[in-house]
């Protein structure tokens, strides 16, 4: 009995000891606040400036990002970037809010583009304009379609990084079987989608087109129908009174009623539509460019991408994340060097873009031999870039995350419960005006 008791005690001491040294022993940052590192770094790396970089990339893309950071560290003797995965885009935002409040924030962070304004409004993001000028870089060096979320109050607060856009993914084999052309307008989409429907009894064996449960696609279609998500002075929605919203939802409900549109359940909708597309259960799919790589390796049919069909105009929002510098950073020069290298140098962002399949974000990248070669080999990827000419981001407001939830409710009411479209949009409009007036 006595020996047992001592065993227990020693186990306790062992655990406490491990717990106490677990952090300090392996983390290379000695200070409690990130960014204060480098003042007296332990063993060997004398005078290195540590730059903390938070990102949201898991899976393969996370590995590519790690490789990018390693390339940077290998080529910079005096700077060490420590990249940390902070969960999904939303979780990263929560972490940033909490870290900024307690002054433990990183120097550089990835930020989902729709959240940029929220942080810019709180004045916690560094204005990058002087840094760009100092390095001889112009805003015109970047892909214009991807700069929609970068400037606020005349300050350049973020630069594009891992950016995507929705495009139309097409099972060309299915279309060819029926002699159908890839649709370029809403009218053509309706015809093609209906022609693809296979119905046995009361059960649909194949649908025409599908899209994940997300605000992204309705927003794209609102712009195509000549509306904007918010009106010009951000006091209300810009698709109510001009009928673009009602037109879009009526169109979708019409497609849904004949099986031309399969609208998936909310939970895990992205995976559901992806596997339906791969299995040939649906002929066309609205989905992010981020899926091209995965789909290419999974399908066994002729798979092509195309512009989202237009109504009055071609239009599409953009997605993905930007990179931003926190104004609380204590190592701004080193932080900028990391951002500059990542944005401009060939072994920085370009390599990452080639591996991951995200959109090239500088003109130099687009003109590079490597991107041109890639596009020649995989034309599907070029389509997404070409479509950026029509990119328009109209859901920009500090209150967007809050209004997004209301828009989801409206989408659910219409797409799942077949509620009256004008009445639902009216309620949504009032709710938006209330939130925007706050």
């Amino acid at each position, binding site marked *: 009995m006595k020996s047992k*008791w001592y065993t227990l005690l020693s186990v306790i001491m062992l655990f406490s000891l491990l717990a106490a040294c677990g952090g300090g022993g392996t983390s290379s940052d000695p200070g409690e606040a990130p960014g204060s590192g480098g003042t007296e770094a332990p063993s060997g790396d004398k005078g290195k400036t540590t730059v*903390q970089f938070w990102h949201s990339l898991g899976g393969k893309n996370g590995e590519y990002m790690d490789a990018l950071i390693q390339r940077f560290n290998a080529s910079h003797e005096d700077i060490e970037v420590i990249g940390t995965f902070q969960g999904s*885009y939303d979780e990263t935002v929560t972490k940033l809010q909490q870290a900024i409040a307690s002054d433990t924030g990183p120097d550089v962070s990835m930020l989902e583009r729709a959240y940029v304004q929220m942080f810019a409004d709180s004045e916690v993001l560094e204005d990058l304009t002087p840094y760009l000028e100092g390095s001889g870089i112009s805003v015109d060096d970047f892909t214009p379609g991807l700069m929609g979320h970068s400037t606020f109050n005349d300050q350049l607060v973020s630069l594009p990084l891992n950016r995507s856009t929705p495009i139309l993914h097409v099972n060309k084999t299915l279309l060819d079987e029926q002699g159908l052309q890839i649709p370029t307008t809403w009218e053509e989409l309706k015809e093609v989608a209906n022609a693809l429907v296979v119905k046995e009894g009361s059960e649909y064996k194949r649908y025409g087109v599908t899209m994940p449960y997300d605000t992204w696609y309705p927003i794209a279609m609102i712009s195509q129908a000549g509306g904007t998500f918010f009106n010009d002075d951000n006091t209300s929605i810009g698709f109510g009174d001009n009928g673009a919203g009602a037109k879009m939802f009526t169109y979708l409900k019409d497609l849904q009623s004949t099986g031309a549109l399969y609208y998936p359940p909310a939970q895990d909708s992205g*995976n559901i539509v992806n596997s339906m597309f791969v299995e040939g259960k649906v002929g066309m799919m609205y989905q992010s460019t*981020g899926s091209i790589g995965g789909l290419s390796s999974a399908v066994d049919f002729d798979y092509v991408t195309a512009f989202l069909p237009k109504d009055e105009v071609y239009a599409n929002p953009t997605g993905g994340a930007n990179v931003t510098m926190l104004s609380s950073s204590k190592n701004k020069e080193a932080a900028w060097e990391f951002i500059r290298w990542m944005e401009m140098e060939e072994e920085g962002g370009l390599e990452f873009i080639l591996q991951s399949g995200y959109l090239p974000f500088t003109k130099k990248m687009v003109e590079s031999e490597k991107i041109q070669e890639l596009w020649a080999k995989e034309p599907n990827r070029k389509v997404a870039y070409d479509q950026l000419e029509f990119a328009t981001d109209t859901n920009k407001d500090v209150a967007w995350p809050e209004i997004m939830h209301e828009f989801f409710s409206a989408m659910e009411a219409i797409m799942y419960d077949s509620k009256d479209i004008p009445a639902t949009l009216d309620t949504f409009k009032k709710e938006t005006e209330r939130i925007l007036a706050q």
Partner: protein
Amino acid sequence: MKTFDLKIVWTMLGYLLKAAVLMIFIFPFLWMISTSLQTFRETMTFPPTWIPASPQWGNFAEAMQAGPFLTYFRNSVVVTGSIIVLQFLIMIPAAYAFAKYKFPGKTLLFGMILLAFMIPGQVTFIPVYLMMADWGLVKTLLPQIIPFISNAFGIFLLRQYFMQIPEEIIEAARLDNASEFKIIRKIMIPMSKPALATIALFSFVSHWNDYFWPLVMTDSAAVRPLTLGIAMLRETEGISNWHIIMAGNVILVVPILLVYVFCSKHIVKAFVYSGIK
């Protein structure tokens, strides 16, 4: 004759019901294991396949190579182990005092403990984080341990258990000049093993599986547990490699199953005993 038939029908119905409930609980596990052995192409098939065409054991190696998994694993073990050990150090004397002592303010104090276990972690994480940041601990494992060393549910459960231990045994020990420390060690702990095992298991599962707290409390891979390592296998955008993610999840779940097998005998006892009294 008729009543006999009815009995068989009821028994059969009982078995069917049990089988159905069992399926509901076991189904996600089977799916997880099945997916962890499939190829990427196979995870995309619809309807899903149950038996992988050719089991891909390499998925586990691939999941392990996706990050510093040994570090994650060590952190999980250290954090969960420390929490359980420290919890017991605080919980046992506390429960003993609440069960067997009379002192002013006892009801109020006990009420406060009960309140503590009704407040969800999401409410307190910001103040706790600020406190930990103030103390300079956010780069260590401690913010994942310290807030949990007092286990309100455990104190409550153990107190109920201690109260069932007859006063006479304790009195007899006191007559033999046993110290309070010795009473706890020689009487209370051995007699409440089932309850201790139950609490240890619950505590282990919830902290081993915790995702939210470690995510908000840690900033670097060096101090992160296995749950965060596995979350990192998932793509933010694009198509996730479910076969790799599920292989990671199998690795995450195996220790829980092992601990359960180890504790289950005691846990069943805990429920049997409390049923008798």
